[in-house]
């Protein structure tokens, strides 16, 4: 080292002197931003070094973290992958449960309101053949199921029982080529025979060419086949082609539109009227109104009397005002503007009003 310094003594001294004077200049001079050059130079000189040091440190730590300490990463990855798979299965299971609950609820509602006697069944298998349009359900003769009984869902007919075992039954679906059922169109009451084709689309045979039927029209069971009771939805007409001597009509069946897992077997079918509106816009069932005392405020002794009107608060007020008007000889809707209105504070003896007309008849009614 000493010999090195002796050999390059002159240049070393030169560099030291130059450096010292550079520092001297830098201490005095300021840049445009009133910052001393010594500070600027120092930061400029230190920053790349710091950046390199930081890059080395980050690279080293990253190398250690990403490569050296990854001995458990593969195992961790496998564990997480297994966890993801488990969660996927769980998610699918919960989704299925949710769908099942929805379908079961719809089925229960339909079952409770259809006049026919039904047995709920779950599809437990399909036919063995590739072209077989048949399913197995978990209800059999033990549950009262017999061969030939119709199978439906709330959306429409599904098929018919072709074989009844003690604990299971085989159901021929309406898409099977061997299936046939009598149908009738909703508007023109055009009758025909629904047949499966082995595809998701069925056809309707024996509709004379002069009959009027249009795409979009709904078909219902006609009851002529003595299997399906009249009035069950079958499907919607997709295509109508004129041909001789019968029209070519293709139908999109509605019974299996939302899958086929739970069905109802009609053990005692009851014919129904064909509705005037398609199933999608058919009236919604509204239950019977609650008992009268259930809608009355408990702190109102007047309303606690028997014979008080049932219904909503608006119904009760309407009946009360009607009674008040009748007691004073006033007819609502006939008075001219400015005429004296009835005294709505008039106290009437006895229970207040009777319902003019219950909003919903007891036993349930349908409102469009």
């Amino acid at each position, binding site marked *: 080292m000493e010999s090195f310094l002796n050999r390059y003594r002159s240049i070393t001294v030169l560099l030291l002197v130059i450096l010292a004077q550079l520092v001297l*200049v830098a201490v005095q001079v300021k840049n445009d931003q009133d910052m001393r050059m010594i500070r600027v130079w120092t930061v400029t000189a230190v920053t790349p070094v710091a950046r390199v040091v930081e890059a080395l440190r980050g690279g080293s730590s990253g190398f250690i973290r990403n490569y050296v300490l990854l001995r458990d990463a593969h195992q961790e990855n496998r564990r997480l992958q297994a966890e993801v798979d488990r969660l996927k299965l769980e998610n699918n299971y919960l989704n299925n449960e949710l769908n099942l609950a929805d379908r079961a609820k719809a089925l229960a509602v339909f079952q409770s309101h259809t006049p026919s006697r039904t047995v709920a069944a779950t599809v437990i298998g399909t036919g063995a053949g590739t072209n077989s349009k048949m399913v197995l359900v978990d209800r059999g003769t033990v549950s009262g199921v017999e061969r030939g009984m119709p199978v439906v869902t709330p959306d429409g007919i599904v098929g018919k029982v072709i074989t009844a075992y003690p604990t299971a039954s085989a159901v021929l679906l309406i898409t099977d080529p061997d299936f046939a059922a009598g149908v009738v169109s909703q508007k023109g009451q055009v009758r025909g025979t629904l047949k499966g084709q082995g595809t998701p689309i069925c056809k309707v045979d024996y509709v004379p060419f002069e009959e009027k039927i249009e795409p979009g029209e709904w078909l219902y069971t006609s009851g002529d086949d003595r299997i399906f009771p009249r009035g069950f939805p079958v499907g919607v007409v997709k295509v109508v082609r004129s041909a001789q001597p019968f029209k070519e009509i293709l139908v999109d069946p509605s019974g299996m539109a939302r899958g086929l897992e739970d069905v109802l077997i009609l053990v005692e079918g009851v014919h129904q009227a064909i509705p005037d509106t398609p199933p999608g816009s058919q009236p919604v069932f509204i239950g019977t109104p609650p008992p009268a005392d259930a809608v009355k405020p408990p702190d109102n002794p007047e309303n606690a009397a028997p014979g008080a009107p049932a219904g909503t608060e608006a119904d009760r007020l309407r009946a009360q005002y009607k009674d008040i008007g009748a007691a004073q000889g006033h007819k609502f809707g006939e008075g001219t503007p400015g005429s004296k209105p009835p005294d709505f504070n008039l106290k009437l003896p006895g229970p207040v009003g009777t319902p003019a007309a219950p909003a919903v008849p007891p036993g349930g009614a349908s409102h469009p």
Partner: protein
Amino acid sequence: MSYSGGHILLSSQREGQVSRFSAWVMLLVPLAAILFQVYVPLFFEFLSFLEMPLLVVVYFALMRRSQVGGLLVGAVVGLAQDSLSKNPLGMLGIVNTLVGYFAASVGMRLDVDHPLIRLLLTFFFFVFHQFFYWLMVRALLGQSLVFEAQKTLVLGLLNAVVGISLYHFLDKLRKAS
């Protein structure tokens, strides 16, 4: 006045004679040069082109044939010039340091007693001094100083001519070896 003989390049460093100066010469001559630079142009403006401190630095560096000595003379003279000017301390110091170092380096290989060599070296170091100062002003101070090459060359020649006479006078102050 004795000039060395017919060759300019020295075959070895031993051929070059190291000039020695007494301490007062080493002190007073640079001081006089600086004072000249400061006061004479006040009364004789036409003499402002003379860069007397530079000429002194070049002379001492050439004659002493010591790089460290040359750069130290240059640094001291330059810092003194800076202290008497509006420049930040170190601007002329750095330039004169480099001039002293390189002049000493050249003096070790050339026969610096030859007037032509002295003329050329003085001219060269004047131009180098001006150019490097311009460079530092731009680089360190960020000032847009114009470098007038033609004027610099002419002034370099004038300073070289004056320097020949000055060096002849300073040769008288050398210690006899």
